[in-house]
């Protein structure tokens, strides 16, 4: 018996993911749809050995306007699943049925699952499932994904219709003249499209859907004939064809609602969600409430609980390192021991230390996402972000990026507009992530007497870099055009499920851990090799002094790049390069290369006077105690190419080599230019000589100001981004 393929389709926020997880359990395969970064999930139906469930992206309709819609359409038309299980949010049934009517037209056997029935019952509304089933001409099942009711029943019914074959009962819901035109179209295309989907194709041709017309190339006579009918309809209804179809679909749904849904008047003055929204998105209160929520989130994840967990993890990896060292002592060559303990365990450990802190942050952000608040945050921030050429939806990636850029960059997927998404990917890592904070702490302690202003200024710099980049990039050809109009469906507020929050936290955390195990492991080993080997007195081999290592030589050969920035010594260069593995490595490198020794991170964590005293040698040795040099170094390290893990995430999300390289180069150039300007103008202000560098710095500032304030040359250019063409 061959496999049965069931496609799971429905609106976003209809409980589709919860249902999918319930039906497939842990037997899932997660990948990407070919050529795009939209997640593709597949799983085996529990209790069956030949039923595959294909989760489709959440969509509102089958028009070709968004990436998700194109993917879903292509899958349903080209792959021909054996049946569709359509999840409908019962609390929001009118909107959801809009998609349902289109899915039915495809002619694929279909079962409609009216989800969230527990909430529907609670509000006192009544949905007459029998009438709905009769009107739609397909089975309708009540489910409640949160409680698990009806899910398996819905799946079994879908398997049954898949076995029984076609869905023949397609309800007609357009007015006379439209039906007339569609009937004519059906007649002309029935020999060229799959028989069961003839109605869907006919309606799409009526709407003049470009993608469908491209696909089924009509003969010029047919085309002319059909066009006449469409134009006649448009004249009669005084509207364009697509609007006619949309309008009549909603009219049909409104009629259907009369027959099947009885609303209680319990919430005549608005539902609970409406009431919450009146407060949380209130014109005056929205921002203060938002800042209060964020304060609590960061206080817990970065402050109290987070701090404690980082300390714990560091201790753990130190112990693992010592334990492995003990095992190997005398048994294996010191080279291998160094490779494993210092290279592999040390490198990966330094990254994994941040995992608990990140998990706590992601846990809280997942909670805010699942309960519906994050969608409101995007709405609140849109007003502000729009001024800088970004959309409110860019805000969530940056929020997550303050924990770790990797899941932050991945969170940019929810942004439909490609330009806005690319811009978000390019700017997310400017927000200092958890691993950049130790660098900030080091500079603050070693040079600035532990001033708290340094940390605050790092966040300000990050935000400034995002804003400046937004404004400047928006005025370039690649990013021309207004940010996409903000349109976002806001889910009802609800208590998140434990499994939902945990799943999303785990997925984000795991994407980070996985990289720690692959790319960071490899690069840690490479860096360890470069820093431990070199040309010593006895030729090439293991060197005791890092000064003689290959890395030191490489650093030395690159230091001319950084001399104009005020830190042209090979140690600072090496620290920056090592920062590519993981940003907090910078602290360790400075420690090892100075009199402070390996415990630099511990001293930094001790904080207070101890850190200021203990780390002072670093400031003296590498920056001559100069605040300008040290801060210039900080600026460069905050903005330049992010760590390898984040670069990997950028590559995956950009899905395009040119854009990836462009993003990295842009960041690094911005970092260099910012440091250069800061350092050289700083020197002049301090009363230094007014040399060539200062002149260049002023020229850069003028060019920057021009790029920032020039009128947008592409302002009136309307560029529409087509999806799925890459």
């Amino acid at each position: 018996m061959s496999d049965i393929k069931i496609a799971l389709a429905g609106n976003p926020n209809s409980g589709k993911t919860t249902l999918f997880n319930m039906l497939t359990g842990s037997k899932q395969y997660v990948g990407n749809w070919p050529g795009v970064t939209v997640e593709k999930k597949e799983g085996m139906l529990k209790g069956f050995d030949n039923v595959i469930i294909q989760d489709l992206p959440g969509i509102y309709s089958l028009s070709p306007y968004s990436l998700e819609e194109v993917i879903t359409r292509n899958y349903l038309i080209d792959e021909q699943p054996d049946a569709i299980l359509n999840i409908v949010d019962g609390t929001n049934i009118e909107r959801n049925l809009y998609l349902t009517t289109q899915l039915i037209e495809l002619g694929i056997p279909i079962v409609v699952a009216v989800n969230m029935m527990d909430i529907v019952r609670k509000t006192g509304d009544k949905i007459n499932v029998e009438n709905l089933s009769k009107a739609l001409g397909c089975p309708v099942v009540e489910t409640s994904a949160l409680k698990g009711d009806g899910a398996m029943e819905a799946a079994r019914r879908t398997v049954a219709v898949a076995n029984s074959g076609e869905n023949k009962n397609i309800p007609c819901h357009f007015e006379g003249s439209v039906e007339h035109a569609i009937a004519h179209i059906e007649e002309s295309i029935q020999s060229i499209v799959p028989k069961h989907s003839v109605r869907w194709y006919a309606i799409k041709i009526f709407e003049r859907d470009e993608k469908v017309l491209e696909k089924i190339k009509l003969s010029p006579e047919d085309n002319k004939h059909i066009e006449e009918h469409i134009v006649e309809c448009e004249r009669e209804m005084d509207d364009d064809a697509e609007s006619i179809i949309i309008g009549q679909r909603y009219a049909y749904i409104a009629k259907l609602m009369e027959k099947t849904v009885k609303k209680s008047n319990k919430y005549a003055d608005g539902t609970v969600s409406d009431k919450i929204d009146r407060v949380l998105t209130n014109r005056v209160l929205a921002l203060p409430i938002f800042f209060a929520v964020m304060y609590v989130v960061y206080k817990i994840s970065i402050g109290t609980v987070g701090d404690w967990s980082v300390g714990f993890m560091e201790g753990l990896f130190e112990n693992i390192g010592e334990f492995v060292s003990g095992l190997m002592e005398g048994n294996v060559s010191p080279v291998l021991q160094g490779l494993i303990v210092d290279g592999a365990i040390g490198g990966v450990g330094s990254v994994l230390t941040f995992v608990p802190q990140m998990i706590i942050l992601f846990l809280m952000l997942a909670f805010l996402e699942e309960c519906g608040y994050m969608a409101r945050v995007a709405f609140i921030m849109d007003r502000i972000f729009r001024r800088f050429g970004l959309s409110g939806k860019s805000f969530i990636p940056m929020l997550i990026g303050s924990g770790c850029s990797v899941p932050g960059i991945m969170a940019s997927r929810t942004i439909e507009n490609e330009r806005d998404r690319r811009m978000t990917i390019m700017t997310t890592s400017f927000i200092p992530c958890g691993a950049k904070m130790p660098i900030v702490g080091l500079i603050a302690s070693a040079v600035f007497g532990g001033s708290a202003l340094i940390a605050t200024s790092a966040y300000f710099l990050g935000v400034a870099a995002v804003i400046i980049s937004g404004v400047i990039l928006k005025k370039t050809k690649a990013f021309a055009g207004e940010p996409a109009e903000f349109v976002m469906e806001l889910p009802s507020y609800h208590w998140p499920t434990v499994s939902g929050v945990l799943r999303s936290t785990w997925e984000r955390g795991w994407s980070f851990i996985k990289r720690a195990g692959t790319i960071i492991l490899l690069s840690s080993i490479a860096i360890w090799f470069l820093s431990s080997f070199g040309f010593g007195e006895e030729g090439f081999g293991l060197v005791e002094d890092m000064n003689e290592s290959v890395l030191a030589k490489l650093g030395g050969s690159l230091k001319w790049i950084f001399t104009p920035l005020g830190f042209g010594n090979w140690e600072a260069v090496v620290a920056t390069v090592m920062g590519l593995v993981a940003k907090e490595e910078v602290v360790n490198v400075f420690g090892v290369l100075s009199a402070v020794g390996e415990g630099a991170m511990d001293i930094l964590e001790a904080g207070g006077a101890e850190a200021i005293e203990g780390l002072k040698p670093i400031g003296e040795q590498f920056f001559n105690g100069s605040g300008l040099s040290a801060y210039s170094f900080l600026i460069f390290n905050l903005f330049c190419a992010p760590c390898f893990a984040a670069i990997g995430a950028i590559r995956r999300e950009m899905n395009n080599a040119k854009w990836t390289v462009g993003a990295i180069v842009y960041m690094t150039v911005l970092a260099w230019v910012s440091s250069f300007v800061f350092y050289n103008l700083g020197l002049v202000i301090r009363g230094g000589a007014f040399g060539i560098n200062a002149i260049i710095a002023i020229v850069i500032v003028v060019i920057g100001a021009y790029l920032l304030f020039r009128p947008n040359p592409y302002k009136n250019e309307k560029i529409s981004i087509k999806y799925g063409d890459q």
Partner: protein
Amino acid sequence: MPLIMAETGKCYTVKEIRGGKEAKHRLEKLGFVEGAAIEIISRQGGNTIVKVFECRVAIGAGMATKIIV
């Protein structure tokens, strides 16, 4: 009047959708069709949260000027 001028907390009926085809269709698909009953939930600058077909939709100021109620 355009929806951007409508009062928070009040109910209206959609009379017409203006603007280019793409924006028009996008709004119509969200349920902003002629005759649809809507309610203004809240507003931030010009960005507005509107309840349409029992569903809350956040739309930008640009979109809000295209909906005539």
